[in-house]
């Protein structure tokens, strides 16, 4: 299994550090630790996907790396600097997060929502004024939401709404973007809309993407690297073709399936055949 970790002796200082590096990260909730000692380095400009069955800790791990949850152990380095050494606002200037199923207050326009993304750059007091700068406009344009600027967010379709939230994250102007299950609960066409947008953000702007996805085929189609978790630990890490194998689907996801290459893109696509029931003895 390839583990794309750059050596730290290249000439370009910017490329020397991974966009994000989790060292021995343990994270969980008050009563229980979900992830134990995970090591993961994310290369800048890549699209990485975290997959795994429910309860595997993928969302928890993502939240821990995004400092949405306090770490129980280990450190996270963002662009080479330890997160613990940065204030929350400083982190927000380097990392934007789109959480799972965000709720919108009613009567809020897209513009007003996206403006909030300027908070880490502008600070609380200046947020009292309306943010009319380029960043907000650029974010709206990039997500194709310029036409919806003055519409209420909760009057939009699922896909449009998600794109508005992505615009909020973009307005933060960060080199890295985390997305926690961005396509769950969306209609299929909206799911593809969102995934295409994410892909475009990576190819045209070089934004590093780390996302948690439920749909394995989407994970295969839209990422450079897939990391599979089970019970709070990494069990597979590599390109989609390397990770999404019949064996992994059998062992981790408990299904009997076939994997074939997509006729258009060559990426692996899997076809489930039947469930295998719970594993007899789990450690």
């Amino acid at each position, binding site marked *: 299994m390839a583990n794309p970790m750059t050596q730290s002796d290249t000439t370009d200082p910017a490329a020397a550090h991974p966009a994000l590096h989790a060292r021995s990260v343990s994270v969980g909730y008050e009563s229980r630790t979900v992830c134990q000692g995970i090591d993961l380095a994310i290369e800048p400009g890549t699209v990485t996907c975290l997959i795994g069955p429910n309860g595997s800790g993928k969302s928890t791990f993502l939240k821990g790396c995004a400092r949405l949850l306090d770490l129980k152990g280990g450190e996270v380095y963002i662009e080479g600097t330890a997160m613990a050494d940065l204030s929350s606002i400083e982190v927000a200037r380097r990392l934007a997060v789109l959480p799972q199923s965000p709720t919108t207050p009613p009567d809020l326009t897209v513009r007003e929502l996206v403006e909030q993304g300027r908070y880490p750059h502008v600070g*609380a*007091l200046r947020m009292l004024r309306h943010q009319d700068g380029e960043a907000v406009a650029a974010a709206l344009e990039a997500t194709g939401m310029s036409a919806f600027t003055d519409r209420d967010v909760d009057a939009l379709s699922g896909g449009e709404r998600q794109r508005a939230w992505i615009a909020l994250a973009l307005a933060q102007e960060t*080199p890295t973007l985390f997305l926690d299950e961005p396509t769950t609960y969306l209609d299929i066409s909206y799911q593809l809309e969102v995934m295409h947008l994410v892909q475009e953000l990576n190819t045209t702007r070089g934004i590093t993407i780390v996302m948690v996805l439920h749909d394995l085929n989407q994970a295969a189609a839209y990422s450079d690297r897939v990391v599979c978790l089970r019970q709070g630990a990494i069990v597979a890490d590599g390109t989609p073709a390397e990770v999404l194998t019949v064996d992994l689907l059998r062992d981790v996801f408990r299904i009997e399936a076939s994997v074939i290459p997509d006729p258009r893109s060559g990426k692996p696509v899997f076809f489930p055949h039947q469930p295998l029931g719970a594993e007899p003895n789990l450690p």
Partner: protein
Amino acid sequence: MTASPLAPPAVRAKARPLGRRADARSRRWRWFAPTMLVAVLVLVVVSVLFGDNFRISPSDLLHWLTGQSGVDPLAKFGINTRLPRALLAVLVGAALAVAGALLQALTRNPLASPDIIGVSQGVVAAVLVFSVIFPNMPYAYVDWIQPICGTVGGIGTAAVIHLATRKLGSAESTQFILIGILVGGILTSLSSLALLFLGSDATRVFGFMSGSLNLKGWSDLRLAAAYLVPGLVLLVLALPRANALQLGDDVALGLGQRLGRDRLLVLGASVLLTAGAVTVVGALSFVGLMAPHMVRRMVGSDLRRLVPASALMGAVIVLVADLAARNIQPQRYLSGLGDAIGFAYLPTGLYLAVLGVPFMISLIWRRS
């Protein structure tokens, strides 16, 4: 897909910067805000001219304002009683409305307001308990100790509710409201107990419990203004943070907010604004709930517009209720009961309740 790692967006699409807002909401705001301001001014003037069985002529008011002599003494007396009361109504209405808007953003629940989560009741209970324990304080002391008592009561109540709900899990906002309702109920009962000891002063106590601007003058206005200053300061700090908080905890964290500290800031602003108002006029209910709701459709949930709009609407609501309170003599309408009715004006809070109850029920009903 593995493009070379670029620095933070080197490529910014050539987007046209958002110009002067031509959107519907900004257009509405441009006439809404001045209209409300005018409405407040008109209501203040009307409140001064009408009431208490005698009218003041506009010319008298004009003369008084421009400092000319020769104003009819009765008119001067009337203005000096009514004008501070009207201005107090503006201050108090605005403060409670803003407090409500902040709480609704903080709890992400449109049904939150300082009187529902018990803060208003805490202020009232503190003041009443103080009056019971120290019944014979000289008036000079009461003037400045009482507001301090009330503020402490309000802060204490908010602290109790905050501490009680802090560790209960992620659905914090609903718990906050439920515990607030319970604590509010306890404090209301506590206040009614004060009647046992202050029975002779029943009218004043009841007035304070429902909220009344009776007999409030220039000193009360100054007091309220002074006590609202800290609230205003916190408001400026809290407003942008509340805007982010209402998007959700995870989003707020992602934007760099410090949840614990910022929540306390917003709560503190709301409590101080409430305490400053309630400690002077009593627990006026429903303003904090009604005002933001009435304006939200017009100006949106963004607090940068919602807060000033709510303030204006709150002022209007309390002015209208107070106008009714001062001009309606129940004895005239209930004369059927003979001399059973005394010569009293009903507290402003009652008219607010009469307005507020059907409003709130329809609100709760519609939103489900």
